[in-house]
C-alpha cells in the first residue's frame, strides 16, 4: 500500500513543479501588465496598446507574412511530398534530412547568407515579402512532418490509380482527391506556421522589418508594462494556434479517412 501511495504522489509533485515552472513567470508577467505604479492596478497598459498604431501595423504585417509563408510552403511541399511518397520513396531519407536542416543551421548564419546572397527585384528583396524566404525554411520541419504523416496515412498509390483509371488528370487528382483528404494535415501545418512566424525575431530584426516580435522587443525597451501585456497577447495567439492543431488532429477520427 505504502509503495503504491508513493508511486502516485511522486508524479503529482513532479507535475506540480513543472506546472509552477511554467505558470509563475506567466502569472507574474500578467500581474505586472496590470501595474500602474505604486499600489494601483488597472488596464492602462492594455488601453495604451489598443491605441498604438504601430502595434496593429506590426501585427498585420506578421499575419500577412504568416499567410504568405503558409501558401508558399504548401505550394512547394504538397506536390513534393506527394511525389516522393508516390514515386520515389527511396528519397525519403534525403527529404527527412533536408527537413531538419533548419534546426541545425542557426538563424544568424542563415540571415547572414541571405543578406549576402540575394539580389533581386526591389518589390521582393526591398520589402517585408523577402522574409517569406527564411520563414518557409524555418517552418519546413513542421510543415514537412505534418504533410508526411498525413500522406502516409492515405494509400496514395491506390487512390491515385483509382482516380486515373476513371479518367482523372493530375490536377483533378491533386485538388479533388489528395488535398481534401489531407485537410487535417494542412490545417496542422498552417497553424504551426502561424505560431512560428508570429514569434520570429532574428530575421526580421536583422533585416530591419517591424514585425510583431520586433515590436514586442521595442516596446520592452520603452514601456515595460505594455511589453508584458503584449507578451501575454502573443502567447495567446500561439496557444490558439496550438489548440487548433490539437482539435483538428482529434477531429480526424470523426472526419474519417483511409482505413
Amino acid at each position, binding site marked *: 500500500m505504502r509503495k503504491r501511495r508513493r508511486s502516485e504522489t511522486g508524479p503529482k509533485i513532479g507535475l506540480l513543479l513543472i506546472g509552477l515552472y511554467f505558470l509563475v513567470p506567466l502569472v507574474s508577467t500578467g500581474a505586472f501588465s496590470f501595474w500602474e505604479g505604486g499600489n494601483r492596478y488597472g488596464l492602462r497598459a492594455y488601453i495604451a496598446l489598443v491605441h498604438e498604431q504601430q502595434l496593429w501595423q506590426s501585427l498585420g504585417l506578421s499575419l500577412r507574412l504568416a499567410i504568405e509563408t503558409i501558401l508558399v510552403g504548401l505550394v512547394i511541399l504538397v506536390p513534393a511530398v506527394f511525389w516522393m511518397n508516390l514515386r520515389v520513396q527511396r528519397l525519403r531519407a534525403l527529404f527527412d534530412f533536408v527537413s531538419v536542416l533548419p534546426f541545425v543551421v542557426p538563424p544568424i548564419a542563415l540571415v547572414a547568407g541571405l543578406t549576402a546572397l540575394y539580389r533581386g527585384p526591389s518589390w521582393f528583396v526591398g520589402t517585408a515579402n523577402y522574409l517569406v524566404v527564411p520563414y518557409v525554411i524555418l517552418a519546413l520541419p513542421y510543415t514537412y512532418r505534418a504533410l508526411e504523416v498525413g500522406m502516409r496515412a*492515405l*494509400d496514395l498509390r*491506390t*487512390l491515385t*490509380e*483509382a*482516380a*486515373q*483509371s*476513371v*479518367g*482523372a*488528370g493530375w490536377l*483533378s487528382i491533386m485538388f*479533388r*482527391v489528395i488535398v*481534401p*483528404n489531407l485537410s487535417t494535415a494542412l490545417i496542422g501545418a498552417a497553424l504551426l506556421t502561424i505560431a512560428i512566424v508570429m514569434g520570429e525575431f532574428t530575421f526580421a530584426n536583422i533585416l530591419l522589418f517591424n514585425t510583431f516580435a520586433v515590436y514586442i522587443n521595442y516596446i520592452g525597451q520603452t514601456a515595460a508594462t505594455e511589453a508584458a501585456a503584449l507578451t501575454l497577447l502573443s502567447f495567446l495567439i500561439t496557444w490558439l494556434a496550438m489548440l487548433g492543431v490539437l482539435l483538428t488532429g482529434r477531429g480526424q477520427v470523426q472526419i*474519417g*479517412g*483511409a*482505413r
Partner: protein
Amino acid sequence: MGYLEVEGVAKSFGPVKVLSDVSLALEEGEFVSLLGPSGCGKTTLLRIVAGFEEPDRGTVRLAGTEITAEPPAKRQMGMVFQAYSLFPNMTAEENIRFGLKVRRVDANEQAERARELLELVGLTQHRGKYPHQLSGGQQQRVALARALAIRPLALLLDEPLSALDAKVRVQLREEIRRIQQETKVTTIFVTHDQEEALSISDRVVVMHQGQLSQVGTPAAIYGEPDNIFVARFVGAVAELPAEVVDGREGIVALFGRKVRAARAQGMAAGTRIYFLLRPETVRVGPEGANGGLDGTVAGRTFFGALTSLRIELADGHGSVTAAMPSDKASELAQGTRVSVSWADDAPRILRRE
C-alpha cells in the same frame, strides 16, 4: 482478332523477369480470369493492360486501336483494386460520380447514372454514406459501380475479393458475374483463388513464372490440364509415376502392374508419364478388390457434404486423395485397409520429363 489483345508482352523489374512474351486475346463481352500463384506476373499483366506499367516489349490493343503508350486516364477502362480504393472524402454516390465529373458530364446525367449503378450493386439506401461507414463488401461494390460508371470498354479487377471474409467473397463473386453478364463488359479478373476463377469465368488463363501455362474454359483447365503445373495448381491431384506399355490399347505400367488408361492411347511404348487422379474419380473399396491398388486410410478432412480421405498406398508408392460423401466416408476410420480404383477413362496422362 480479339477485342482486347495483348501481344508479345515482356516486362522485367531490374534483373527480375516478370513477364516473357505473353500473348492473349479476349472476345468482346468475355470474362477471363488470370489465375496463378503470387509472383506469376498476373497483376503485372493487368497493370500493363490498365496502363499503370509500361511493357518492355509488345503491344496492347483495345477495340482495334493500339493503346500501349496511352496513359491510364485515356484508356476508358474501369478498375477495381485489391485494397479499398474509395475516396475517403466522398460519399458512395460522389465516388460513383467522380469519373463522370472529371469528364464534365452533365450533372443530371451524372445523377441518373449514379442512381442506376447504385441499384445495380444493391446499395441505393447507402448512397449518402462515407467509405468508413460501409463494410468491406459494400466498399468493393461501390468501387465496382465507380468503375462501371464511365461505361468502360473493359473492366479490370485486381483481386477485388481477397480482403473480404469467406462468405461475402462468394456472394460478391456471384454478383460480379451477374453484373458482368448484365452489362456485357469485357472483363479481366485477377485472382490466386482457383475456386473463384473456375466458378465465374468464361475462360481461365493459368499463369506460371511470367508465362501463360494454359488458356481454356474452366472445365478444360480442371479436367484436361496441359501440363503438370496446371494439374497441380488447379484442384487436388494424385501424381503417380508410370510408363506406357502399349500405346495402341492404352495400357500403362503402374507400380509393376498393367492397367488400362484410355488417354494413353496413341502414345509410344516406353514413354514416361504421370498418371493423374482427381479425388472425385477415385473409388474406394474393400481391401483386395479386383484390380485396385491397396492402401490404408491415413487422414480424413471433413468438408461438410464431402469428406476427403488421404490413402497411403502400400509399399511406399505415395498417396492418393479420394473425395466421397461424408456419410459413406464415416465408415472408413483412419487405419482401415482399403483398395483404390478408378474408371479407365478417369486418369489424365501427362508426359514426364
